[in-house]
């Protein structure tokens, strides 16, 4: 869901008085707060006075640490989002999920083979999938989670890797699954198998790795590590971006 959609949807559901006052009423773990309209869930919780020790990471939608579960007042369905990416709406009952207890299998990727039963033998619980699709509906990244589990189940490693590519390992799928599948670990295994054995090898990567090993960038890194912080910031701000240079940005 894009941010614009969020604003539109939330405004429709808000009573006029509150919009005029510029505040929404939200509930953080059951306690009511008034927060300014237009904040992300993460900012709103901080505005309410909370300091994040867990459930907060990159603040840019990439790390998957800030998964939020919320229900709007009088709504039947639970909703799932990344707190740093979703705008706060009126009447949200919010809770942050700090950690997902999902056991992860130990395996040596070098000793695995990308065969039909490889994933199933490491995560046999994927055979318990009843196709309820709850995982898909709990994914803040809008990934077709059930379909990648189904592809893993039938041994289509490449398809499982492809469908799970946008996963940021927030773990909401595993928290919701009635069959106790640990989807995001399954997707990660599929992508590892795919990257190591099935995908075409990148020539550029090989060249760059050799350059790193040969110490081509050691001097530059050394300079950055000892540089004055202000200079680092300035250097970062004035950096050139490839896509912009090529006129693609």
């Amino acid at each position, binding site marked *: 869901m894009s941010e614009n959609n969020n604003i539109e949807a939330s405004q429709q559901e808000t009573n006029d008085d509150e919009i005029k006052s510029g505040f929404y009423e939200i509930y953080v773990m059951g306690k009511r707060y008034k927060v300014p309209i237009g904040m992300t869930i993460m900012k709103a919780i901080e505005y309410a006075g909370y300091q994040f020790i867990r459930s907060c990471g990159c603040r840019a939608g990439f790390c998957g640490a800030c998964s939020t579960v919320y229900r709007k007042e009088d709504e039947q*369905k639970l909703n799932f989002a990344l707190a740093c990416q979703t705008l706060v709406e009126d009447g949200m009952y919010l809770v942050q999920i700090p950690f997902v207890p999902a056991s992860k299998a130990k395996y040596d990727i070098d000793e695995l083979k990308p065969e039909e039963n490889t994933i199933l033998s490491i995560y046999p619980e994927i055979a318990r*999938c*009843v*196709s*309820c*699709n709850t995982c898909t*509906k709990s994914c803040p990244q809008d990934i077709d989670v*059930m*379909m990648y589990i*189904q592809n893993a*189940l*039938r041994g289509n490693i490449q398809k499982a890797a492809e469908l799970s590519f946008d996963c940021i390992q927030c773990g909401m799928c595993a928290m919701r699954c*009635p069959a106790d599948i640990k989807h995001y670990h399954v997707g990660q295994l599929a992508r590892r198998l795919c990257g190591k054995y099935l995908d075409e090898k990148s020539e550029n990567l090989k060249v760059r790795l050799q350059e790193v090993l040969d110490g081509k960038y050691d001097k530059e890194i050394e300079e950055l590590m000892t540089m004055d912080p202000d200079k680092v910031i300035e250097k970062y701000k004035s950096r050139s971006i490839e896509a912009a240079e090529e006129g693609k940005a």
Partner: protein
Amino acid sequence: MAITEALGHKLIEMEKWNCCGVVASLTSDDLMHHLASIRNLIHVQDEGEDKVVVLCDMCTNTLKQTNLRVTESQDDLETLNEFMDKENEYKGNVTVIHFLEFLRDEVGFDVIKKKVKRPLKGLRIMPYYGCMLLRPAEVAIDDPEEPRILADLIKALGGEVVDTPYKIECCGSYHTIDQKDVTSKRAGKISTFGVDRGADCIMLSCPLCKYNLDTRGKEAESLIDGYHQIPVFYYTQLIALALGLDMEPLDLEGHAVDPIKILKERGIV
């Protein structure tokens, strides 16, 4: 797909599908285990079709039983559709047919007979139906007590039918996982009936029966004195052979009991 094309028909492969759910749940209040089947029927519906042809006996049985249940009970359909808050609901209009039904009713065994290029002449084949094609009777694709669809197909392909009363017995099914010996002994019993009546091989249409009769049947050789397992063919293998199609995709080398020897002996390949 190659078979249907050779017979002048075209099937469209489903773009999206999930596991059928494996074994239709018979518990009256256990609707959750019908979700997988319903979802497949919704995939068919979403792709703009109203009929789905299924290769596997187990999938056919599961899909047919779920379809029947929601056709007969509006309540159950509504409960299952409650899960489809973001997906399309199942309207109940998809027909599920087994590939054998497609061959019998829509292609016609007489048409197949005319298209045979490599008749299975002299090959004595025991048709084996197992459970899923025939039980429960409401979803059976043939007479549950005296089925003939596989026998008719064998005749159309030019083979000889070896009939046995064990053709509708259970192969041991999922006991193959935790009680391998039970399944092996059943495979031994079923095949022995065929061998005593001069069968060269078995033809069946269920992948689990195929595994049990072939692999567990081979293991039965060490459990039953003097027993030798005869080769087991999946029905599409024999159809493709008889139609003269490319043998490469048939995976005849992947069997526990070598099926190529008898085909050579009978001069078929």
